[in-house]
């Protein structure tokens, strides 16, 4: 790939870097407890919690670093952090 003049880049290609490999703990979501309030989606520093068709959290594990912020902040305690098994 030729160098871009002025050390510039087209936007959004940070996605080439799959930070999910950093994870040692993995958030698991219990949709029975979830009230789809969206807190986890809003506060994820990785911007990797989306919504599924029914409005429940849908994690992109390609990027989730397993920080546990979502689990900590979930008002319904619907997210549990589990040790990654690789």
């Amino acid at each position, binding site marked *: 790939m030729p*160098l871009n*003049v*002025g*050390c*510039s*880049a*087209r*936007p959004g290609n940070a996605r080439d870097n799959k930070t999910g490999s950093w994870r040692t703990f993995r958030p698991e979501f219990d949709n029975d407890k979830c009230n789809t309030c969206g807190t986890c989606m809003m506060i994820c520093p990785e911007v990797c919690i989306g919504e599924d068709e029914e409005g429940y959290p849908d994690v992109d594990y390609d990027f989730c670093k397993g920080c546990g912020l979502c689990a900590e902040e979930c008002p319904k305690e619907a997210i549990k952090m589990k040790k990654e098994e690789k």
Partner: protein
Amino acid sequence: MLQIMEGSHAVAEAVKLSRPQVVSAYPITPQTHIVERLAEMVADGDLNADYICVESEFSALSSCLGASAAGSRVYSATTSQGLAFMTEVVFNVAGMRLPIVMTIANRSLGAPLSIWNDQQDSIFLRDSGWMQLYAEDAQEATDLHFIAYKAAENYDVLLPAFVCFDGFILTHTFEPVDIPTQEEVDAYLPAFKPYQRLDAKDPISFGMYATPDYYQEFRYEINAAMTRADKVLREAGAEFGEMFGRDYSGLVESYRLDDADTAIVALGSVCGTIKDAVDEMRKDGKKVGLLKLRSFRPFPAEDVKKALAGVSNVAVLEKNLNIGSRMLGAVGLEVKDAVYSSGIQVHSYVGGLGGRDIRKKDIKMITEWAEKGKDDCFFGLREEVL
């Protein structure tokens, strides 16, 4: 049209005719007359630009950087301490490949504080990635601004440029200058078309950081662009010559060098005094000539080699001091490299620092020194105060 005016005002006219959209500068002697005139032009509506009245040189060039990245043709001017204060941004602008043109009203660097002329301020930034063009008189200073924009904005170059002209000696001198018309300049220098710009409709990230995997390649590219600038500057200079009748197709200019045994090499306004001195020495039967360097970056080594091919001795008149180097001046180092292994003797003679006047008799003296092979040294030194 030929008019008589102050050198600074001639440069301000050239800047106006180049149609910058953003001008950002901080006042510093002896650059002030340029920016004051530009501010007047903006105030009177003669120049359709935003004049950012910044709080420092550091912000002057930083705001130019932003304005250029956002897609405007921009201009700044400074000198000496101001240039030193912007140093970090100077390197940054080149690295981001922004074609900013900045006038340097050459002045010495403190300490001791001195407002007077030498060329240490621009010379010390030789590795920054900016082109460095030097003017002999107000006319050349005027013309080089158009050429600088044209070359800087060329996609094969995309490097910023200093147009250097000697503080006071040129900035504050009244002399006849041919100022072209707006139509003529527009025909030579079309509206700025940025290679890329900050634009919400087509976003880019600009000025990212590079890991060891990439950094060296970026620096390689800057150097390659500077190498290409040699050709682009010549072409821009030749085209200028065709349109305006003043030829700048060469990055060096030889004066009575054809049969010369000794050559004097110099940059800037002192070349005028040297030409007069050469004429007088020629009358006395001395085979001496001048090689004037119009560009120090890119350094036209091949031209220098060719121009000096027939001479035995070279006196490089240095208005800078290469402290700690065996070769006393930075220009001499480059000249010596250009003629390496040719057997030509090259000497740096340092003088005119901090505004010390350089007279024809000084030129004659260093010519004799070079003929005798006198080692690098200062000239015009007041031994009695040492």
